[in-house]
Each structure stands twice: as structure tokens, then as C-alpha cells.
């Protein structure tokens, strides 16, 4: 269901709240919650342009003489002293999360198509297993997974994170895509078959083009989840130079926890790109998150 459009229609046809008093109450609660949410973020961004001593004295006023010092530290000094930098971490994150998205959408798409269109003996069992694997936390698997990764020699290697992340996200992708493909009419596919198309060209030339929105949702969501994941990344990437963004942020917090300016700038650097992506793609993201609600 399309949230935005139904919400819009709903708002248009909705009878107004008659009572002005309850109207005022409703808006004050909503504005208060929104204000708290925005202010927390604003406080961090605002103070990221201040020197440490200034933050300790007065962190509330709007910054008047902004300094880029914290950002210079975040991008530069970290790398010389500790062999890590935010730029490098971004690259690592991009490699890991990008590859995970590619693997998940390809493998998930193929499997979802089969689950939606074919009928076979173990389909019910598979359905149950896919849904069930969303219920228990991924961290419970870390011991055997880490040992396997160690045996193959992929510790500190991005591939060592990409493969387990793919495995963890596949069930979600399959369930979402399966639901979407099921709702498509099969007539066109049958017609294409009569014209001489094989099942693979039906999949790539007919099913894929119409399922693009669902793939976008799955892709965005997988990317976000992978980018935000800390547990797997922290467990498998144990050298600072291979840290992606989340792990680096955690490291900065434990090492430079008292340097408020640096902490603010580091948080800003990590959060802002995600926020921009969110504002552009919010419809897809919301749909994905609520649809894949069981992912949790």
C-alpha cells in the first residue's frame, strides 16, 4: 500500500477536529516531540563547529564564529596517529555495504522468483524456515561464523563481512520480493513463453523490470542495515585500517570520548549522509521498514 498517497487522501477527506482546545493540545504534543528529536541533532551539529572549551561553557547558543578544526581533526589527525581515518572508513563501508546489497538483491531476487512462481514439495518448509530465521538475533551465530571466517582466512577482509551479512539479510529480501512477485499477473509471462522465451529470459526481461521498486526498497534497506551494523563488523574486522564507519565511530568514542568537538564532528559526518539519503528516499525506506517489520 502506498503510505503517502493514502495519507494524503485521508487528510483531505478527514473531518476537522471540532474542538480548538484539543487541537491545540494535539499540536503541542506533536511539535514538542518533533522539537526534541530535531534539537538533539541540531545540538550535535551546532557544537561540531565549536572548540572544546567553548562547548563546556555554553553549548546552547547558535555558533557565531564557526571553526572547521574538529573536521580537520576527524579527517586528518586520526589517520596519522592511529592509522585510521574517516575517509578510509567511508570507503570500507561503501565496499562492504555496496557488495552486500548486490549479493542480496541478486541471490534474493532469484530465490524469491522461484518461491513465488514454482510449486514444489518443500516450499512450505522453506517458507517457514525463511520466516523463522528473522526471529532470532544474528549475533547468536557469531562463534561458528567467526571460526569459519578464520579458517578460510578472511578475518580483516571485507569479504569476511560481506558473506555473513548477505546470509543474514537474504531471508528478509526473499520474503519482501516474493510478496511482490506473487501479486503480478502471470499472463504476460505465459505469453512470452509461448513466443519462445525461456524461463531465464522471462525473469530478466519481464519480471525484473516491473519489480524494480521492490528491489529498490530491499536494496536501500539492506544498505542501511549493513552500514549501521556494528556487531558483525566489530567481530570480523579487528584491524583499525579495515574499520567501516560504525566500527570507527565506536572506536573514536572509546578513545577520544572527552574531546567533545571531535565527537560532535564525527557524529555529524556519519549521520548527515544517511539523513540526506533518507530525505530523498524516505518513501521507499518507510515502505521497506514497515513491510519488513519482522526484521526488527
Amino acid at each position, binding site marked *: 500500500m502506498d503510505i503517502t498517497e493514502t495519507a494524503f487522501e485521508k487528510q483531505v477527506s478527514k473531518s476537522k477536529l471540532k474542538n480548538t482546545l484539543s487541537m491545540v493540545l494535539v499540536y503541542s504534543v506533536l511539535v514538542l516531540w518533533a522539537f526534541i528529536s530535531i534539537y538533539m541533532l541540531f545540538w550535535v551539529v551546532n557544537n561540531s563547529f565549536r572548540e572544546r572549551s567553548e562547548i563546556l561553557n555554553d553549548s546552547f547558543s547558535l555558533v557565531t564564529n564557526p571553526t572547521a578544526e574538529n573536521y580537520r581533526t576527524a579527517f586528518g589527525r586520526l589517520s596519522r596517529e592511529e592509522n585510521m581515518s574517516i575517509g578510509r572508513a567511508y570507503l570500507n563501508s561503501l565496499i562492504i555495504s555496496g557488495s552486500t546489497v548486490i549479493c542480496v538483491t541478486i541471490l*534474493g531476487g532469484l530465490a524469491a*522468483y522461484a518461491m513465488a512462481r514454482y510449486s514444489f514439495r518443500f516450499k512450505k518448509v522453506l517458507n517457514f524456515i525463511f520466516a523463522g530465521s528473522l526471529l532470532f538475533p544474528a549475533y547468536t551465530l557469531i562463534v561458528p561464523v567467526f571460526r569459519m571466517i578464520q579458517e578460510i582466512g578472511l578475518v580483516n577482509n571485507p569479504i569476511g563481512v560481506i558473506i555473513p551479512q548477505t546470509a543474514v539479510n537474504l531471508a528478509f529480501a526473499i*520474503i519482501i520480493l516474493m510478496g511482490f512477485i506473487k501479486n503480478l499477473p502471470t499472463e504476460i509471462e505465459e505469453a512470452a513463453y509461448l513466443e519462445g522465451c525461456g524461463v*531465464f529470459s*522471462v525473469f530478466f526481461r519481464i519480471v525484473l523490470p516491473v519489480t524494480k521498486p521492490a528491489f529498490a526498497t530491499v536494496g536501500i534497506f539492506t544498505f542501511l542495515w549493513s552500514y549501521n*551494523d556494528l556487531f558483525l563488523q566489530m567481530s570480523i574486522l579487528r584491524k583499525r585500517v579495515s574499520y567501516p564507519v560504525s566500527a570507527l565511530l565506536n572506536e573514536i568514542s572509546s578513545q577520544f570520548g572527552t574531546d567533545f568537538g571531535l565527537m*560532535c564532528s564525527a557524529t555529524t559526518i556519519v549521520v548527515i549522509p544517511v539523513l540526506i539519503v533518507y530525505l530523498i528516499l524516505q518513501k521507499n525506506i518507510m515502505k521497506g521498514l514497515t513491510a519488513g517489520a*519482522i526484521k526488527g
Partner: protein
Amino acid sequence: MLYRDKRPLIIFLAPALLVMGIFLYYPFLQNFADSFYEINGFGAVTKTYVGIENYRQLLKDKTILQALKNTCMMIVFTIVFEIGTALVLAIMVDSIKTGAEFFRTVFFFPIVISATAIGLMFNLFYAYNGGLFNQILEKLGLDPVLWLSDDKAIYMIALPIVWQYVGFYFVIILTGLNSIPEDIYEHAYMDGVRGLKRVWYITLPLVWDVLKACFVLGITGSLKIFDMAWVIAPYGAPKGLTHFFGTYLYQTTFFSQTVGYSSAIAVLVVILGLLISYAVMKLIRSKAFFYSEDV
């Protein structure tokens, strides 16, 4: 006709099943097997069969009890504060004309930010010297507070989690509210059912299924807590009081390196997760399990 030939099936399914089998289901079984052994460290090949010793130790472990307590507390917080606040906000946004879009965007954004970043942000708020909270207290003429003290730390972990997930449940509930047909409200209005009465007698019963789905999500979600707890209070600081199953498992695996014992914890968490979800679903007869199918 097209799908009568089953041979392509194997090409479609095999890659996904292979990856999931090796990295999801096999580890699951491996965990179970390992939990009956004493294994110290990852390099060592020596495994000593100890039977149910690890499980016996689990029962005596005070930290496990603490983790269980914290998880149960989080479940209560999730239902009361996360889903409760989300429900109130959703009903409010559903009843207004202007600004609904704006509020939805703002309320939902914390969910896309990583728990790591939010945890770090809240660490800045909690800092004793110059943290946001203590600066507010100072402005009000009050004494600064040690936010991450023994008795407060666990609530300080719960606070950002609650703030982050309110938006999540808010959007789910709002979607449910939007699917209530308009004429039901119109009839109710003509029958004189308005305001809070309308919420209680009409809105709530109609979104009950959605709320049930939220409960299941919240409960299983509480078992998954790791990042936020780790960033705000690593290693269960102070004194292991803030451990959740995830953080304790990480500690026993990579810090104490008692791998056999970690496996027993993992098995416990999986069993707990399945049991609780099963119980909740039976109890409230929810279809949450397959909620995702009606996209």
C-alpha cells in the same frame, strides 16, 4: 505451462540456500554441538566434552540473570513507552490536517541512523562535565548528575532505544490507521461517538491486529539489543549491570574466549526467542509472523 519444467528451480534457489545454509543454518547447529564442549580460544583445536556443564554454569551465572532481567525490563519499556507513545502520536497525526507529512518524516528519522551514532550522541548528552543534560540542569540552577551511575546506567541505555524506535512503531501504526475506511468514522460521528470515545471504541479495536504485530516485534527486538548497549556502556559497565545477552555473548567470545560457554548462551537466546515469540503469538493469535506478506 512455463513453470511446469522444474529444472531451472535448482539454479534459482541453490545460490541463496547455499549461502544461508553455510552461514546461517549450519552455524546454528554448530552452536548447539559446541555448547556441550569446553573450548578455550579460537586457535586451539582442543575440545573437551563436558556434557551439560555449560548449561549448569548458565543457571548459576549472575550476569546471565542480570541480562535476563535487563531484557525483560526492555520488553516492558518497549510495550509501554515505545508502542504506547507511538500509538498516541499516530492517532494524533492521523487526526490533523496540516503538517502530517512533516511529523511523519521527523518522527521516523532516528530509525535510519545507526545505534552507534545515536549511542555516541547520547554519550555526549550524559557526560558529567559539559554534557547536554548537565548543562540544562546547570541552567535551571540544579546540581549536575552522574548519569551513568550504577543505578541509572541501564535506564540511560533504554532512553535512546525508546526514542529511536518510537518512530518505527509510529509508522507501522499510522499505516494501520490509514487503512481504516473513512465511512466508519462518519457513521460514528453521526452516532455521537467523538474524540477520546471514538479512539477507545472504534480506532483501537480496528488497529488491534497491528498493535499485536508490534508487540511481537518489540519482544523479539529486545533480545536483539547489542549496539546501543555496547556504545553507551561497553562490557556491561558499570560492574556488568547493563549486560544484555548480546553484549555478554560478545564479552565471553572475544574477551574471555570461553567459546563453548558462548555457544550455550547463544542456544539459550535462540530458544528464549522462539519460545517467547511462540507464546506471544499463541496468546494474542496474531498473524505478525507473516505480516510482511501483505505489502
